[in-house]
Every structure is written in structure tokens, then in C-alpha cells.
């Protein structure tokens, strides 16, 4: 027997929870720029706004409507908290989709009414509109919650319960829905009354599912979610650490414990959370990423030490907590990574941590981005260890001309953009800089136009060879000239 807990229009409910109550009609858009309405409250719907309209259309229909933007990460994170809360009601929770959860209540003491009240109590602190219902299978339980909060469907009464519901609760695609309407079928009861065989022959496999559900039967399996595993070790109330060696010793003890726990559970950590409590009451929390998930104490300690290099504390450390984060299944052991090039991922992790500690900002890797402006043609990400060092086969030459076999490529370097003096003759730069140097060769202009929809960027770029042998990329924006880069 299943308990269904739903939050109608969950994403909108979360957005309203964050934004606060307002009398104005509210619509939820998928994004701020060029977004579309993905959910509406009752007032906006009554004003004529509909899901799928652009923000402009929906705002025009519901004049003065408040537009909230969907935050998928926030919605997902809150849903995880809600599921954690439901763990108090049943050990088996199926969080099918954000806003809909099923709880297996078989073997849980109490009556259905008790289950419903427990679910409400568990979720009350979140302040969201919750509906709970009880039935034998997922579809019936969800339908019961749709009918009214607190509905309890006795075993065998599923068909009668769902009979008056409209066809749209089946999630039928609009074309099939229209076909069913043309056949005069509007409710689940009418659909269930049709003979199973001919209906399935006409509507296929999906039709079989619709017919079964309309008859109160749902074969969707119950998939309990995996429980979050917390692996951590703490050291409090065992004196104070005043020098680095003492802190490192304590960390080593804690990491050994964490690694032993991970080994028992067959896990490895992708990051470490460290919490240091100081005597003056200050608590410092840091999350330290590892290049590759590991369960090796030595590697973890190396990364932690590198991250704590140069960190000073104003008072002695009285408490320590080390937590294994981003846990994943252990899988293959780490030494296998060394097979290709004898490169230890932990060495890279320690190197990255040392660099960050020394320079104050993390090392990174670049990736290309499709853009016209030079400065937008690349972006930086956090450095991640390549999975393998296999070298792909060299691409086949596309042409026999010497140009295509060239291996050395001119390198442009971006200089700090600064305004320069340029004298123009016949529409092209003739002298550049101060004192002016003659332009021996000039190519361009190439017009760059971007961001026409927000802050327009329009500029003409030139490559110039100056007397003396300097090669520069310059550009004109408006009436001013700027230095962009040099060929190195």
C-alpha cells in the first residue's frame, strides 16, 4: 500500500516560497531573457495567461503579473530535503519526480489516517502546500491526492475512485486525447468501460497502459531512493592544537578513520569537507576537491596539507571534523590509473592545491567558445585530469598544398586593451603609436558585431605590420583606436 505525497505546481510553490506572498498574479518563467511561462497561479490563469506563452504575452494577458524565474538547482535541492523529511514516515521513499513522492507503508504500524497526519507533520516546517493520499498503487494514489487531500482508497476501490477523472490525468498526448474525445470518451470510467482487446489494437502499447490505469491498475514499479551515506570523523574536546604539526597529526588520525569507513562501505570520495573550530568560537569550513575520487589516506592528507599551507589561525584549534564528500562506488583501484603514463592523479591534485595556496587562485584549463570577438573565443574551467593519454591518429591531410601541411601556426597574444593613436590615410591605418610608426602592411577591416540585443559591440579589426617588424592586431570602435594583441 502506497502513500502519495504531492505538492501541486511544485516549482511554482518553491518560487513563491522564496519570493514571498503577493496579491499580484504570478507566473513562473523558465528563464529571464526570452523565457516562457511554465507555471501560473490561479489569478494569472483567470486573467488569461497560459503556460507556454512568452513572458511578454503572459504579462500582457495578466497585467502587472509578477514574473519569477525557475531555479532548477534550488528546486532539486529543496526536494532532496523534503525526501529526507519523509524518511521519518517510511524507510522506503520513491521520489519519482520533484513534487511527487510515494512511500511504501506495508509493515509500518498505524492506520492510513495516521500515515497521512505523519506525512503532513514531517513536511509542515517547509511551508509548502502538501497533499497526501493513500491507495494500492502509484496511479491510484496520485489520483486520490489529486481528488482531495487526505483521500484514502480502500483496496479494490481504485477503479471507482479514478472513474470520474478526466482523460488528461493519464498524461495522454494531445493528438490521442483528441482521438479519444472524437470517440466520445471523456473520463477514465468511460475508457475503462471499453473492451480491452479492440482498444489496444487501435491504440497500441500505450493504449494498454491507459486502459489498465483507467481500470485502477498500475504496474509501475516502486523504486525506493538510495539513502545518503555520511562518512565523517570528528575530534572535539581532546585538548587544543597550537602548532601546525599538531593539526596535521589530528588530521591524519581523522583521515585514517574516514578511509577505513569508506573501505568498509566500498566507497571513495571526490572531495573532502574540513571544519576547524577555533578556541575563540570561530569555525572555518572548507571543501577541498580531489582530482580523482579516492579512498587513499596518504593522497588525501597530501591534498589537505597543501590546502592548509599558508593558512593562519588567530587562536588554537579545539575541534576538527573531516567529511568525505561526493561519494561514489569504489570501482577500480587507483593504481590502475598509473598504467598509461605513470601519472598519479593524486600528484596532480596536490600540485593544484599547492598552486592555489601559493597564488590565491586556482589553475585551470581552457576551452574554445564560438564567438567573433577575440576575448570571447575561449573560457576557463577548473582543471580536471584527462581520463587517458591515448593519442588519436593524426588527421588526414585535406589538401596537398604546402599551406595545409604547416605545423607551426602564428600565435596571437592578447595585450591589455589600451587606446592608441592612429593616423588614417585612404581609409586604412597609416601610422600607429606615439611616436608614430609607419604601417608597412595592413589587412582588414573585419567588422565584429555582437550583443546587438543588449549592449551592442561594433568594431573593425585590422592586422598591421609596423616598420621595425612589429605585428599587431588593432581595432577601431567608434572614433577611437585600441590595441588588442600582438603576434608572438
Amino acid at each position, binding site marked *: 500500500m502506497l502513500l502519495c505525497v504531492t505538492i501541486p505546481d511544485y516549482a511554482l510553490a518553491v518560487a513563491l516560497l522564496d519570493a514571498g506572498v503577493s496579491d499580484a498574479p504570478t507566473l513562473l518563467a523558465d528563464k529571464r531573457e526570452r523565457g516562457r511561462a511554465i507555471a501560473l497561479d490561479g489569478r494569472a490563469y483567470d486573467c488569461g495567461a497560459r503556460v507556454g506563452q512568452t513572458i511578454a504575452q503572459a504579462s500582457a494577458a495578466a497585467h502587472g503579473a509578477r514574473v519569477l524565474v525557475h531555479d532548477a538547482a534550488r528546486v532539486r535541492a529543496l526536494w532532496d530535503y523534503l525526501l529526507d523529511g519523509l524518511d521519518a514516515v517510511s524507510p522506503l521513499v520513491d521520489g519519482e519526480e520533484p513534487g511527487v513522492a510515494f512511500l511504501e507503508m506495508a509493515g509500518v504500524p498505524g492506520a492510513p489516517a495516521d500515515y497521512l497526519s505523519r506525512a503532513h507533520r514531517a513536511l509542515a516546517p517547509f511551508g509548502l502546500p502538501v497533499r497526501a493520499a493513500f491507495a494500492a498503487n502509484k496511479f491510484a494514489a496520485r489520483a486520490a491526492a489529486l481528488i482531495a487531500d487526505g483521500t484514502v482508497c480502500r483496496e479494490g476501490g481504485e477503479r471507482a475512485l479514478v472513474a470520474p477523472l478526466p482523460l488528461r490525468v493519464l498524461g495522454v498526448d494531445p493528438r490521442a486525447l483528441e482521438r479519444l474525445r472524437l470517440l466520445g470518451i471523456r473520463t477514465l470510467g468511460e475508457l475503462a468501460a471499453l473492451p480491452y482487446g479492440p482498444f489496444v489494437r487501435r491504440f497500441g502499447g500505450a493504449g494498454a497502459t491507459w486502459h489498465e490505469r483507467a481500470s485502477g491498475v498500475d504496474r509501475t514499479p516502486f523504486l525506493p531512493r538510495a539513502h545518503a551515506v555520511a562518512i565523517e570523523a570528528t575530534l572535539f574536546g581532546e585538548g587544543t592544537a597550537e602548532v601546525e604539526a599538531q593539526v596535521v597529526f589530528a588530521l591524519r588520525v581523522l583521515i585514517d578513520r574516514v578511509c577505513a569507513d569508506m573501505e568498509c562501505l566500498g566507497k571513495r570520495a571526490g572531495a573532502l569537507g574540513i571544519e576547524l573550530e577555533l578556541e575563540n568560537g570561530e569555525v572555518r569550513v572548507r571543501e577541498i576537491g580531489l582530482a580523482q575520487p579516492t579512498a587513499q589516506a596518504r593522497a588525501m592528507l597530501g591534498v589537505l596539507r597543501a590546502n592548509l599551507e599558508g593558512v593562519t589561525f588567530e587562536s588554537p584549534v579545539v575541534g576538527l571534523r573531516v567529511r568525505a564528500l561526493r561519494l561514489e562506488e569504489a570501482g577500480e583501484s587507483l593504481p590502475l590509473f598509473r598504467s598509461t603514463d605513470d601519472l598519479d592523479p593524486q600528484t596532480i591534485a596536490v600540485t593544484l592545491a599547492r598552486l592555489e595556496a601559493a597564488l590565491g587562485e586556482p589553475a585551470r584549463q581552457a576551452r574554445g567558445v564560438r564567438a567573433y570577438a577575440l576575448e570571447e573565443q*575561449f573560457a576557463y574551467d577548473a582543471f580536471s585530469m584527462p581520463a587517458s593519454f591515448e593519442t588519436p591518429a593524426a588527421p588526414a591531410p585535406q589538401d596537398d598544398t604546402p599551406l595545409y601541411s604547416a605545423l607551426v601556426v602564428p600565435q596571437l597574444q592578447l595585450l591589455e586593451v589600451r587606446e592608441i593613436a592612429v593616423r588614417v590615410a585612404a581609409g586604412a591605418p597609416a601610422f600607429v603609436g606615439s611616436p608614430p610608426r609607419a604601417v608597412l602592411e595592413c589587412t582588414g577591416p573585419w567588422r565584429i558585431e555582437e550583443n546587438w540585443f543588449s549592449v551592442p559591440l561594433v568594431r573593425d579589426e585590422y592586422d598591421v605590420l609596423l616598420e621595425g617588424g612589429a605585428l599587431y592586431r588593432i581595432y577601431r570602435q567608434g572614433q577611437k583606436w585600441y590595441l588588442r594583441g600582438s603576434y608572438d
Partner: protein
Amino acid sequence: MSALTSVSVLHTDRFAAFAALKSELASRAEAGRIELAGKLVSSGIEALDGVLGGGLVRGTIVALEGGSGRMAIAARLLAQATAHGLAAVIDAGDLFPPALARAGVRLERLLIVPARSAIGIARAVDILLRSRAFSVVLMPAVALRTQVWARLAGLAQKAGALVLALGLCASAELAAFSATRLRCVLDRVLVSGAGGVFARLVGYDVRAHVLKHRYGRPGGNALVRAIERSDSTSVRERAVIPEGLIRCSFA
């Protein structure tokens, strides 16, 4: 010396004697060449390898000086390094990764370390070399004390890594601790298309002069052509002469 004496006796013609002397000395130099198998790293540029006696010496500091062309040569080395492993670049804010990618550098294997101050750059290179995970480390040739260059040279040797120091002109300390010094001078630029908006700078020729080489003689130079892929079949060359005299030819 007896062989040299016999040469002068046998050949009365001065030019013939000079030619014989040259070949004699060349053969002696060849016989006395230091075996560097496994120590040299090909620069990936045939002409440059030729004047460097096979390539750059692994585990040393290489100073790349001059103007245009330094980074093009360095990019070729980075491309070779990232084909099989990891390389690192100290970015003082002027790096343009798309150009490196066009030169064959695999960006996912290139660690970019942002550092601007001289001491920050030195610390970053120190950390990178100690990790022994990076076969090529590219850094700006900043002004560092002798002790720092000495330490970096020692670390490079232990790690077997190639440290490329790019700058306009090597300081006295860098000149002393670098095993190889190359000075790049722009020789000519290559332009495709007729002119103006239809023209495009597709590359340049750079003359790389060997100022210092630990296992070879300085003084040689190699012409390195850096060129972009281009659909245009005609490329115009414009020679660059510091005096301002311009030669123009069409290819």
C-alpha cells in the same frame, strides 16, 4: 697535426687546401660529438632541429628571445608535449588559447596557471617542476635572482622537463642558467588575398638564431615558417627589414 701538415703539402692550391681542411675539421667534430640519445627533445621543426644538433636538451631551461615567432615555436613544443602527457603554461594575462589549439595543443591537457608577479611565477614553476608531471613548462622570462634560476634549473634537470622562458631579451642570470638561447627575428610576413578587406595575414617567417647551445656551437640560424590554414592559393610575401627598405614579391 701531422694530418694537417700533410694536407698543406699535398695541395698547393689554397682554395683546395682550405676545403680539405674544412672537411678534416668537420670529420673530427663529428667523431667527438657527445652522445645525446634520449636527452634531446625534438622541437617539432625540422629546420630548427638541424641547427640545434637534433633538438633541445631535456631537463634544461630554454630562453626564447626576440619578437614574433617565440610563441609559435613554444606552441609547437606544447603540442608535442600534450600529445602524450601534460604541459603547463604560466599565464601573465596575455594567453590566447584558441591560437594554441590551432597549433595542435590539446587544451584539456594544458594546465594554465594564472600568475603575474615575478615571485608568483617562480613559485608556480617550482611547484610544477616538483610534481614531475609536466614535460614542458612555459613561463615569461621575468627578472629573478640567480639563486632562483639555479633552483629552477636544478628542478628542471631532476624532473626531466623543458622550461621555456619567453622574453624580449634574457637577463644575465637567465642567460647563464639556460642551456639554449634562441633569438627570433621576424623575416617576412605572409598575406593572402588582394588587399584591404580581402587580405588576411596568414603567417610569417621567423629567423631563429642560436645564441647558446650547451652541446652545440652557437651562431647557426633556421628559417621557421608559421602559417595558418588558408583557402587562398596566392600568398604574398613582404620582407621585413629594420632599415625600412621593403622588398615585395608574389608567390
